[in-house]
């Protein structure tokens, strides 16, 4: 009796908090179904619930192009980071070289540096390279990630020394050891890392905002901002529909990758 009362109590509060936290998204989804005129008039309901805003979003805005761009950018960055961070993390985890500690400390220091502080030099660099408004400019500055190196190094350190010794015994070279033992051994971290990086860069805003100048390269978040008129009136219904569309891949990844995110958070790897 008391336990079931307790349960009801718990569920009541949890539901309440969940509703509070989910409210912006729920309201967004609801608004995406209303005609803009009704939203503008401040009505919360309408007799005209439809998917018209979604159709309008796809037909009249380049949202699909934006999503394709985000997808390409996020995939490229994830792949680039995967390659570079894996190799760097391998060096820090398994190789002995002079000033290893100092160099690693340098890596960590760059992690403390907020990306905002790197924007200006990075911008100058890609400007000089002629990479403004291109996939190169959108992705290459993110290929090296101190956080990625750190996270993967921590994962690689979990590989028992004995496996490293064993790999030497059976004559694996560094790359073989990396690909045949280290990577499969760390696969859950790698999956977490990949999903996390994909999401992070799917949601990139500031950098695409200042380095893209055409719809050919704009990403979703920047595109969404584009749709939000400043001097004139915003078509909120379409904006909401677009926002929900953009949200879908994120939700999908979260749904599928939840287990790995939890794992990543539990081991503290994602706290940074």
């Amino acid at each position, binding site marked *: 009796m008391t336990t079931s009362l307790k349960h009801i109590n718990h569920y009541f509060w949890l539901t309440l908090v969940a509703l509070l936290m989910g409210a912006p998204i729920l309201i967004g989804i609801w608004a995406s179904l209303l005609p803009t005129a009704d939203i503008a008039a401040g009505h919360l309901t309408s007799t005209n619930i439809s998917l018209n805003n979604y159709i309008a979003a796809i037909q009249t805005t380049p949202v699909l192009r934006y999503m394709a761009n985000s997808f390409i950018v996020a995939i490229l960055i994830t792949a680039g980071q995967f390659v570079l961070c894996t190799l760097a993390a391998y060096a820090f985890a398994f190789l002995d070289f002079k000033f290893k500690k100092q160099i690693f400390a340098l890596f960590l220091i760059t992690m403390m540096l907020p990306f905002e502080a790197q924007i200006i030099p990075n911008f100058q660099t890609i*400007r000089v390279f002629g990479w403004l408004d291109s996939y190169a400019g959108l992705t290459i500055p993110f290929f090296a990630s101190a956080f990625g190196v750190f996270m993967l190094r921590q994962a690689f350190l979990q590989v028992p020394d004995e496996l490293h010794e064993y790999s030497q015994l059976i004559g694996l070279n560094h790359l073989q050891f990396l690909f045949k033992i280290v990577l499969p051994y760390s696969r859950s971290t790698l999956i977490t890392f990949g999903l996390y990086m994909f999401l992070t860069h799917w949601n990139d805003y500031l950098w695409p905002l200042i380095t893209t100048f055409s719809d050919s390269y704009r990403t979703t978040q920047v595109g969404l901002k584009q749709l939000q008129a400043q001097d004139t009136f915003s078509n909120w219904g379409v904006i909401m529909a677009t926002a929900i569309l953009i949200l879908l891949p994120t939700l999908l990844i979260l749904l599928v990758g939840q287990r790995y995110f939890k794992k990543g958070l539990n081991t503290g790897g994602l706290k940074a």
Partner: protein
Amino acid sequence: MIEKFWHRWWSLICATMAVIAVIIGLVVATTPQHQAQASNGRITLSFWHSMNGPNGQLLDKLVDGFNKSQTKYKVVPQYEGSYGLAESKYINTLHTNVTPTIMQQSDIATMTAVGDYVPVQQFVDADHYDLNQLYPGILSGFKLKGDLQSMPFNASSSVMYYNKDLFKKYGVKPLSQSPSYSEIRAAAKALTEKSKGAVKGATLQIYPWLPEQLAANQNSVVVNKNNGRSSAATAAELNTPAMQKIFTWVQGMIKDGSFQNFGTGSSASANQMAGFLGGKIGIFMQSSAAAGTIAKAAKFKWGETFTAHADDVPANGVAAGGASLWISKDKSKAEQQGAWEFIKYMMAPKQQAAWQIGTGYIAVNKASVKVPALAAAIKKNPETNVPIKQLQAGKVNAATAGPFLVNSQMDQYLGTAMQQIYGGKDIKTSLKEAENEVNKGIRDTNKSNAAILKAVFAQ
């Protein structure tokens, strides 16, 4: 699930990732430059603008018309955010692969100071283009030393919009064509009281361009040296009787409880528009360029009047707002010529007429009113022509030329003063403080930009 998949395919995934990385490297290193590459033998001209929403869609349509009208050039329009954002993007990317050939910008002073353009006058002269077909009152704001620097494509003026249905519903007399402050205050008060507070009578967005126009309408400049037109301005003139009258009027309405303050920030304007479209605001002041949006979204009858004038001061007229088209210096002769062809196309009567009908911007070409579509629209709704009538009725003087000020912090500090005044602070104190701050900014700017300013005003 992933784990299983991963386990089976990890080596493949690793290899694929590596291959992708290599490919990106190659692809990326050979990313084509955004120079005018010939597509189907056409010269591509990138065109940065700040038109979005319905206005942006119409602009795209006009550009499309140009592209279809000839085969030599292809203009690619790119929305780059607000004028301010587009301007900073433009400045940050001068001489790079993304520099546009054609740039729409409202900030004449900064564009002039940056100086990275070819004055349109050169093409006008070479082409014997007849500038007389355009309204001189609008052209004047874009001239330096008598030479046209850029082409005023989208001209606007500030107007008052009001909800005619609300006025009728609550039995308030419609506004006159050139309303005075007290007329608006009375109407706002009546609306608020008769609707028992369901409607707020009026608003004036915290947007410095608005009080600047209200001051111009009282023949008052906002910076010295004839609004910075005769030589570089050295001081702001904000704590003037004209400004004081404007804010006394606003504070009066705030006291009446008939005023809605939409605050500041990027959404203030959108919220104000939403409030008006939602029938919650009776009167508001905005660029005539908002008419297109209102026409599309309003489900009620609405009216448009001249910018309000102070009770004891006859309307002097307002400055032409909007923006002009600039041709980049950093491009080949062929591209620049293409840009000029594009500008000519956009300024033709037909395009300007379509532009006014669709957006509420003023058709700059005098002949546009004779285009049947625009003529019909004006006949059907005479208020469509209010902005043009206002411009024609206005005087051409320093106040209506608008301030010419390089890099000042006018907007920031006048905005702050507005916030303070709306919050109840003393008008004169707020304006004085703003004036002092702006003066400091002007002094610094003039000092650091001495050479540029000298070049701009050298005669």
